[in-house]
């Protein structure tokens, strides 16, 4: 019989704890498959966040080191400076990277740290129960924006990846989405480009991934995937915002 699918070596053979329909499960697999396909399983070091993916080290079968909430880019900087030939990536939620970790991320990008941020945008603080995130969209009802996010009261959703793309040290910045199978496959390609930018030493790379959180959005999984496609993408356009392929930042 022909083998058409096998589990990636970069994931441990255990079940995820994520909710049904959660984007984290899909994204873990994409990241792991890219690591395996690039033959970096024994050279990858991941930095999980505080967030729903806090236990990512139970799933990824590569070396992992925990960061305090938001500090992934700084922890990854320390690792990468010591081990410059490894693939070093952070895995961070939208609250982690774009609220509490804003400074660490922007300055890691600005130093052109050769690390990759996998940035999971689910428009809420998933782990703590669905509070407003910096990325919650206008009108979005969350447990801390019960009347819906009103920019005059709660500010605007932040397009953090576009911001990072402005920074000279950023070599690659793109936004992808898990909204349907075609986009899932596209997301994987984009992750690979980001990792390649890192391994070529081009600078900082970031992939923002729009990701459903059915639990905190209080939707069924199909509804949640539709909400990513119909609502989130309006605020967060997909695409590659920066690709410094070929131009080395060093000179």
């Amino acid at each position, binding site marked *: 019989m022909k083998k058409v699918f096998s589990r990636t070596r970069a994931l441990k053979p255990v079940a995820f704890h994520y909710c049904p329909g959660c984007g984290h499960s899909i994204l873990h697999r994409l990241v792991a498959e890219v690591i395996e396909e690039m033959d970096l399983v024994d050279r990858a070091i991941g930095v999980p966040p505080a967030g729903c993916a806090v236990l990512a080290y139970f799933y990824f079968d590569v070396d992992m080191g925990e960061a305090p909430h938001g*500090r992934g880019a700084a922890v990854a900087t*320390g690792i990468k400076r010591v081990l410059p030939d490894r693939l070093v990536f952070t895995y961070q939620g939208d609250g982690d990277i774009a609220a509490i970790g804003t400074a660490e991320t922007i300055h890691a990008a600005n130093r052109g740290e050769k690390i990759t941020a996998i940035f999971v945008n689910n428009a809420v603080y998933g782990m703590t129960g669905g509070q407003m995130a910096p990325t919650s969209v206008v009108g979005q009802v969350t447990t801390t924006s019960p009347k819906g996010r009103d920019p005059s009261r709660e500010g605007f959703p932040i397009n953090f990846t576009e911001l990072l793309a402005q920074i000279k040290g950023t070599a690659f910045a793109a936004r992808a989405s898990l909204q349907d199978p075609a986009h899932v496959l596209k997301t994987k390609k984009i992750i690979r480009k980001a990792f390649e930018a890192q391994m070529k030493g081009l600078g900082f790379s970031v992939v923002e991934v729009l990701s459903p959180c059915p639990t905190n959005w209080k939707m069924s999984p199909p509804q949640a995937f539709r909400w990513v496609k119909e609502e989130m993408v309006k605020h967060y356009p997909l695409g590659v915002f920066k690709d410094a392929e070929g131009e080395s930042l060093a000179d």
Partner: protein
Amino acid sequence: MNEELELMRGTYAIGEAAIRAGCRYYFGYPITPQNELPEYMSRRLPEVDGIFVQSESELAGINMVMGASMAGARVMISSSSPGISLMQEGLSFMAGMELPAVVVNMMRGGPGLGNIAPSQSDYFQATRGGGHGDYRTIVLAPSSVQEAADLTYEAFDLADRYRMVVMILGDGMVAQMMEPVRFRPMRPLDDLPSKDWTITGARGRPSRFLRSLILDVNDMEEHNWKLVRKYQQVEKECPRWEGFLLEDAEMVVVAFGTAARIAKGAVKRARKEGVKVGLFRPISLWPFPFQDLKALYQRGQDTFVVFELNAGQMVEDVRLTLGDGARILSYARPGGAVPSPQELARVFSRLALSRRLP
């Protein structure tokens, strides 16, 4: 190896000693009175193929230290009080993950921005862990440039041996003053202790992870007990102190760092005037040298003057050590003003008559 005596300021001596101890990574953010340390590292580290990164904050800096430590490096960061406050979250995580590193705090007056004069205002913060959770850091307090160099050199070995953060606790005086110093030899990097817990990429071995999150309550408790056992071992193996003219002393001054340096001068002066005073100088503030201080008391010395450049923090450890029977006096100077040895010698005479602490 016969090393030359060099005239150096404290910050430079700490930086050079760190490099000789095998430190090749420094992360930090400027703050007075220790700016010369990052400056020194920024020019010296590249000469030995090391890496200096000026972080965007102390918060980022300590997290870079965390990452470098995870990757197995000997790594250092330095700052002064407000910056050390910003690092506390990271220090707590490092305690949880048992990550070694050396952190230098050249204290300044506080609270808030305070001032940059010599101060020992962070004694509590340093010796009680500092951040959240049940943890300790080893705290070493030099009172000369030579000692700053020696303690820094040894701090890296202690950090690796116990997988703990070691803090070098000084102030603007230790940081800025110039004194002759003789450095220990350069440690070859392949001579450093090997580590079987680092995350370096899972080549030829199963993957590893480092984390402080332990959701299972029993596992969390067991992990904390493991830390406690380690701290107890440190308490047994690492107390350090120096005594000066204690043999016949009728009054014992307890002081550390800069305060001890001044106290030593004052003790000499007071002795000339017939006041029988000696000095007990804790070098390790945590672990505090309880046993030896207690032994002094049990030997019959019962008047202890605790001199500190803060409002009286170490006096609590002295009271814990000696209990209610001893006569314990606190001479506290929390403003950043450093009394002269003459002034302090007069204080010793006067204090002998002052009331017992409640």
